[in-house]
């Protein structure tokens, strides 16, 4: 039995140690090869797996991703063909909430821009004024586990918080100390809009030209979720035109970002290498849990991250 790992950064020896107990061997390949002895795939958001994989890998039983996001997996299609898909849940909620707070503080207080100012030989005046965080209005788009933590942190910093959610009721949001709002209300009134929702057909490209035009010219956009939530061409235009004050992006349309990634030349942009999830502990969980789930499926046990019961 073989398990293919499509991520060349995966600590593959640790996965092998986990899979020893079910007698499977792990090997790396950027693209999953054809093979009747392949029973599992370890993957990541940069490698999409759809249901046609079973034509090449007929005995595939499980696909496990080292991410919370699953927009790269055809979960329903694979389940219909008897393949279990697993993600990892809540493995980095605190890290992402922490990183999001660090980025929104960095935007409002201008620290990255000011570091560049000083290194460039300037001192005063500031190209963009640092602002007071206390009393600033934050719009949190998405009210999952991370959104809850983010709301709590932002309220603690003295911010006023609006939550945009299709699922959470106004009283549930009020119980967390925030106010339910429509996306347009949040865009039009917030100092910072933070995207912390998953990519679905309803949210893909949700921030485009119209939405950016609704934002205040002194407002910041923070994305620690997925790049596909944003129309990046529209975002680049809005930044160049000064329609918004700046942004912080932890997700880019192509990851790792290629040399020609245009965001590198956008003004007032903080770029992060998909780092919000990271701490030493969360990184270990992100690789160990999927390998463990593959071992469980192969052993006939229930995997912890199963997304949909298989046919």
């Amino acid at each position, binding site marked *: 039995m073989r398990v293919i790992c499509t991520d060349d950064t995966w600590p593959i020896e640790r996965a092998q140690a986990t899979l020893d107990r079910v007698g499977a061997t792990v090997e790396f390949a950027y693209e999953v090869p054809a093979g009747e002895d392949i029973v599992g795939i370890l993957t990541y958001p940069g490698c999409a797996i759809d249901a046609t994989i079973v034509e090449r890998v007929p005995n595939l039983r499980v696909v496990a991703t080292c991410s919370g996001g699953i927009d790269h997996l055809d979960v329903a299609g694979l389940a219909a063909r008897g393949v279990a898909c697993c993600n990892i849940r809540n493995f980095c909620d605190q890290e992402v909430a922490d990183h999001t707070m*660090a980025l929104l503080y960095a935007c409002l207080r201008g620290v990255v821009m000011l570091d560049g100012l000083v290194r460039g030989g300037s001192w005063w005046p*500031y190209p963009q004024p640092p602002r*007071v965080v206390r009393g600033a209005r934050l719009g949190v788009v998405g009210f999952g586990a991370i959104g809850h933590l983010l709301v709590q942190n932002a309220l603690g910093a003295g911010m006023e918080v609006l939550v945009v959610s299709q699922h959470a009721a106004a009283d549930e949001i009020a119980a967390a100390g925030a106010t339910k709002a429509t996306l347009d209300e949040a865009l039009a009134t917030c100092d910072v809009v933070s995207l912390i929702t998953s990519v679905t057909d309803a949210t893909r490209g949700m921030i485009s030209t119209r939405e950016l035009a609704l934002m205040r010219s002194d407002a910041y956009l923070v994305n620690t979720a997925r790049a596909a939530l944003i129309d990046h061409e529209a975002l680049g235009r809005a930044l160049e035109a000064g329609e918004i004050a700046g942004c912080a992006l932890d997700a880019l349309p192509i990851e790792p970002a290629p040399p020609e990634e245009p965001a590198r030349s956008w003004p007032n942009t903080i770029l992060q290498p998909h780092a919000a999830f990271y701490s030493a502990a969360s990184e270990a969980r992100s690789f160990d849990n999927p390998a463990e789930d593959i071992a469980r499926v192969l052993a006939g046990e229930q995997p912890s991250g199963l997304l949909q019961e298989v046919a």
Partner: protein
Amino acid sequence: MSEGEVSSVKRVVILDPLWPLEESADVIATLDVTLEKAAEAVGDDVVAVLAAPEQRVPADLLDRAPNVRLVGTCSTGYDNLPVPELQAQGVTCIHVAGYCDDEVAEHTITLASALLRGVHQLDGFTREGGWWPFPREPRRIRGSRLGIVGFGRIGRLVAVQANALGMDVVAYDEFVDEATMHGLGVAKVDIDTLFETSDVVTLHAPLLPETTKLVNARRLAQMRDDAYLVNCARGPLVDHAALGDALAHGVIAGAAIDVYPVEPPPADEPAFGWPNLIVQPHSAWYSPEASLKPYTRQIDDLARFLRDETPVGVIPTKEA
């Protein structure tokens, strides 16, 4: 002409060339003195001198301007004024406190969280084409220990903000009791424990002879090699050269400084070559709201003094 009778109109010298006097035009119109900007205060007709932190008022000020009765700095820190010498000669010294406490506390938390999450370094890394593995491992903010040196107004606000992020907050201040710290969710520790155990050490002490180079090579060596230092207070609290050595040799993981030995720093400021350092242009105090308050409040205090009222920002005389 009798001795001392030189001019009928008294002068107030403003040492800061950028002082926005227009913001206080209404108050200034009520004063029977002239306000002028000059690099030096000289003359029998000078009654008051106002400075910004960038200007150092000389200890021998009264040798050249013997009738000065008020000296002010439009900042919270007043290490640019020779306060004991001036007070000994009967000069009232004023400063402006509390106009930017929220800003400094927020900027401090911003820098502490940026260091712990590697935001600044990872931005540069991504721009240069890097992606993975990260040159610096982001750490959790929740649960990290923040050590606050100096538990005055700003130190306390930093503690509140840090607690809101779930940090483990400890503080050192010999003048603040344990119960006061406990009331704000902070554990009082000795200074050795603070430096030895904190993930981030942040300075909020005034600059005094006994706090100069408070952070020296010995203190830096006490810090964990994965720990960070934040200084949004005053440059001379840190032995600058020792900080450079500590960063170059990995004695500590990084630092963020908003203040320098000389401000603005000269073009050959060595800090610009140090690794794992965030540099800021003395901006922690700034917000559009805070930017005008120190100037207008100080002119308000000048007006009070000239009306023989007590200024709000009088620096108390130290007991001998």
